[in-house]
């Protein structure tokens, strides 16, 4: 009974993600990434800049957060919306175990549909430079974990977690993150790039250190997970609030 995660909750969460339409979307995203990488390889050849831009702009900025968003809201939002999460909560199971089990499934999706495809895309475009793909895969995994934690909080805070998550990604991470350099201090994607930099051996993130990025990511993961557990401990079945 001291297990950190519950095999039953993991099994249910896995079925929940793949038993719905969003399971298909999860597969489409990496297919697009790999398809585009193949196209670049064929049309442009083994070009380091094209590869780096594709891994950054498509892999880290688009595919990773979207996979995290779809997977995390997929294991939490529908059950909270329709109240069926009560069947998990009306059990003598610590709420932390329920949240961590669901996050394990979401993180598994990030590995399978974002980090691994990023690695493959890197190898496809730059077979001669495997460290580039590996670096972005690590960045994708770490950023993906932070995104999962953030979207888990959104799922327990609002019924519109997907919409709020999309707006956050579009406005903060993509739009403002692209215009204002100061956003880098508070941008999960930029942290992911900073963590990828030392692995790649390239100056991918000249203005943000990997140490800061790693600490910031860890703080977000722990803080957001704790907040999710805390909210779920006070779950209201009536949903009148």
């Amino acid at each position: 009974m001291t297990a950190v995660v519950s095999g039953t909750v993991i099994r249910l969460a896995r079925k929940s993600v793949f038993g719905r339409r969003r399971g298909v979307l999860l597969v489409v995203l990496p297919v697009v990434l790999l398809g585009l990488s193949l196209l670049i390889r064929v049309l442009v050849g083994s070009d380091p800049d094209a590869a780096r831009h594709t891994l950054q702009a498509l892999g880290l900025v688009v595919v990773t957060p979207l996979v995290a968003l779809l997977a995390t809201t997929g294991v939490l939002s529908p059950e909270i919306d329709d109240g069926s999460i009560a069947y998990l909560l009306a059990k003598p199971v610590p709420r932390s175990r329920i949240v961590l089990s669901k996050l394990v499934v979401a993180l598994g999706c990030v590995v399978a549909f974002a980090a691994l495809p990023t690695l493959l895309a890197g190898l496809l475009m730059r077979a001669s430079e495997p460290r580039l793909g590996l670096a972005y895969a690590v960045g994708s995994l770490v950023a993906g974990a932070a995104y999962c934690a953030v979207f888990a909080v959104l799922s327990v805070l609002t019924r519109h977690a997907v919409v709020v998550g999309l707006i956050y990604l579009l406005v903060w991470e993509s739009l403002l993150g692209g215009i204002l350099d100061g956003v880098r201090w508070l941008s999960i994607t930029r942290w992911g790039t900073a963590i990828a930099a030392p692995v790649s051996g390239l100056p991918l993130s000249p203005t943000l250190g990997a140490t800061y990025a790693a600490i910031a990511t860890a703080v977000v993961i722990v803080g957001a997970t704790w907040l999710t557990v805390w909210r779920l401990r006070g779950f209201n079945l009536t949903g009148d609030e």
Partner: protein
Amino acid sequence: MSVLRLDHVSRWYGNVVAVNDVSMTIGPGVTGLLGPNGAGKSTLIALMSGFLAPSTGTVTLDGDPLWRNESVYRRIGLVPEREALFDYLTGREFVVANAELHGLADPGAAAAAALALVEMTEPQDRAISTYSKGMRQRVKMASALVHEPAVLLLDEPFNGMDPRQRIHLMELLRTMGADGRTVLFSSHILEEVEQVARQIEVVVAGRHAASGDFGAIRRLMTDRPNRFVLRSSDDRRLAGALLTDPSVRGVRLRAEGGLELEASDFGRFSMALPRLAREGGIRLLEVTPSDESLESVFAYLVAS
């Protein structure tokens, strides 16, 4: 033997008071929580199942607080009103998952026993998405019973059940109550409640309106003054004749025609009215109860 205790519990949402200073003790046996829709029954069940914090007061199970205390679920089985289930699972997978989450030694056997108890063995391998309303209700019951809880809380459990399933569930609840379990179910239908529960708690507009044996509640509900609107061939003479009968408390001639009448003893009045009309040679054109809605019955209970 488990006892649920609410002590001066109120719950409000902003300016809206959902439950207003309710104190009640739910002990072993079957208790019916009766009240019109929107009276606060679901809020009370949420409070009793640890899914809502009281704004003031305390809710305890055998002395343990329910809010933010997941260990109480070893003793509680909950059947929520909402129909949503894990539609992508089969009935058996769902009940087995519930058994596993309770940490039972043999989840498969416990699930099989619970499904048999609610007569869901045959369709257990079909996806829940294909189930009818009654089947969903029964699979919810099985999930709540799988760990043989000391306390069973059911929110409007008879909704959507056909008469045969209803009778079966009533029997099941009676058996569980007779076994010494604490069973509480909510309903807005008096007839439904009195068929199963000896003890009835009535809530109206968030207040605890009445509590007691079903016979006492039934008397409270039927012995209240009844109001009727009558139209006849001679309203004024009928009014005079009716006032001679002790079952009639008052009659008023309405400006738009007809009579407004209040009867204190419904049984006696229903016999007296046709007799008096016949004796006076008065033809009754209309007899309409003007306050028969459940809400008015409950409103009377609150006032008394």
